[in-house]
């Protein structure tokens, strides 16, 4: 954090998330549903990885498996070198959902304090952490407000602050900006990128939006449904420092095209 070097240039070492032939089959009344099949993927520390694909391609299921909210039925999945359940207990990740899920009866600071209370941090430690993450998501001064006093974008920023408060190295985000309008979304994308560069977190990001995936990621994982699988893994050639207007450059457009091709490919198999 002390270094001004962009985190993306520090990507080194063993993978923090490693999937080998991971499969997950749900047993339903209509027979088995193959949510994930033979997923191989390695994510290294400091990478920003987007998962993109149509509904039912297993992108959310994969993210939930990393978080130990689902249990794969085949293959091996390691987070920080241990199984996802142990990683969760070691506070390896913070999870951000599509809805902020803030408690209306707690202030913003109170909401960020919630996981810290559950994990048993001391009061002074909690206060120091709340101030730090509020600053990180540019919500300093809003700690005493209640969620309904904030806009949707600010609420989602508060939920990101909550996920960052206990210093997990991995941030898992499941369509965090999916419910927001495009203008707010652009601003939050920019802020998220700045936050990632500043903290060097490893980020797993599920999205439906091609521009969002291309703008944010160092690696784009294109997935396709029935069975849910990875069809393409694209390493981004874009520099880590990305102003919003990078989206008008030929490199960006070419990359978006490649992602679109990947998505189409998945459907052709269908």
């Amino acid at each position: 954090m002390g270094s001004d070097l962009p985190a993306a240039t520090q990507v080194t070492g063993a993978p923090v998330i490693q999937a080998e032939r991971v499969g997950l089959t749900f047993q339903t009344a209509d027979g088995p549903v193959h949510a994930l099949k033979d997923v191989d993927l390695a994510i290294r520390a400091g990478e920003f990885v987007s998962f993109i694909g149509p509904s039912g391609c297993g992108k959310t299921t994969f993210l939930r498996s990393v978080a130990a909210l689902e249990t794969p039925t085949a293959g091996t999945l390691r987070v920080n070198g241990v199984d996802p359940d142990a990683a969760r207990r070691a506070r390896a990740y913070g999870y951000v959902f599509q809805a902020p899920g803030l408690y209306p009866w707690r202030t913003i600071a109170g909401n960020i304090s919630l996981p810290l209370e559950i994990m048993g941090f001391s009061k002074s430690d909690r206060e120091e952490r709340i101030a730090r993450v509020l600053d990180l998501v540019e919500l300093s001064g809003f700690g005493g407000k209640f969620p309904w006093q904030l806009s949707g974008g600010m609420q989602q920023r508060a939920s990101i602050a909550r996920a960052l408060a206990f210093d997990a190295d991995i941030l898992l985000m499941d369509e965090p900006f999916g419910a927001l309008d495009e203008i707010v979304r652009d601003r939050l994308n920019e802020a998220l990128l700045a936050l990632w560069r500043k903290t060097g977190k490893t980020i797993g990001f599920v999205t439906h939006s091609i521009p969002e995936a291309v703008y944010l990621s160092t690696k784009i994982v294109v997935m396709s449904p029935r069975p849910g699988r990875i069809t393409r893994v694209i390493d981004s050639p874009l520099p880590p420092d990305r102003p919003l207007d990078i989206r008008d450059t030929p490199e960006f457009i070419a990359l978006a095209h490649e992602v679109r091709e990947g998505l189409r490919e998945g459907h052709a198999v269908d």
Partner: protein
Amino acid sequence: MTDAATPRSRWPGTGNLLPVLTVILAIVALWYLAAVWMNATWERDQTARAGVELALPDLITLTLTQDRPVLPAPHQVAQGLWEGLAGQPVTSRRSLVWHAWVTLSATLAGFAIGTGAGILLAVGIVHSRSMDQSVMPWAVASQTVPILAIAPMVIVVLASAGITGLLPKAIIAAWLSFFPVLVGMVKGLRTPDAMQLDLMRSWSASRPQVLARLRLPSSLPYLFASLKVAIAAALVGTIVGELPAGATAGLGARLLSGSYYGQTVQIWAALFTAAFLAAGLVALVSLIERRVLARMGLAG
């Protein structure tokens, strides 16, 4: 909010006054008619026996001033109520305030026991599959047994164990009031959606932590809705508990002794006292509900 919803009203808060007054006046008028009609038989018998003809105005006057009317007129009930509430020292056995206090204390004790039991059972049901399947049928069955059949047994069994006074009545009140709390809280504790529960899981929260920090606060709107039903049910339970022979204190005993001695005015005065008590208790719960939910951002 409700004022804005009644656009016919020129003065905020008075929008419902006219219709409400009209209904009350209509009820009072009907009541007077019914009193004249129902009490007339006795007056006609009396005058027929005396061989006197009775003019209609006299008949009306007589039917509305009987000592033990079949149906006392509103002003007689109002007078009985006033004498019972304000005409006696509150420590007197003839004071409705004293009887109301006896009933109220058992009601509140039973309400507290019932609410506690309802919440505890609901917590158990939400957390244990076997409790979910085993407790609910019994809870439903407990409410299908007529309370009038249960109450004397509770009183007699506890009296034989040397327990009399407030506690037996409170247990009957609790019997009636735990059920709405149980049903409401089972629903309320299950309101947190999958995402909120997943968030808790992502923090490796324990079950007691999820209960204290998520399930219980989320259930409060349901709890308060249940409490309003439960406190009225507790009052009914207490009054029923005061009916079995032997009880000399409380509104239920007042009702019973009134019916023994044909004191219809006393019965009606006790009934109205019970109604006012119930209305007051429900209003009190509503007030606390509004304050708490507004503070928690859960109102509306």
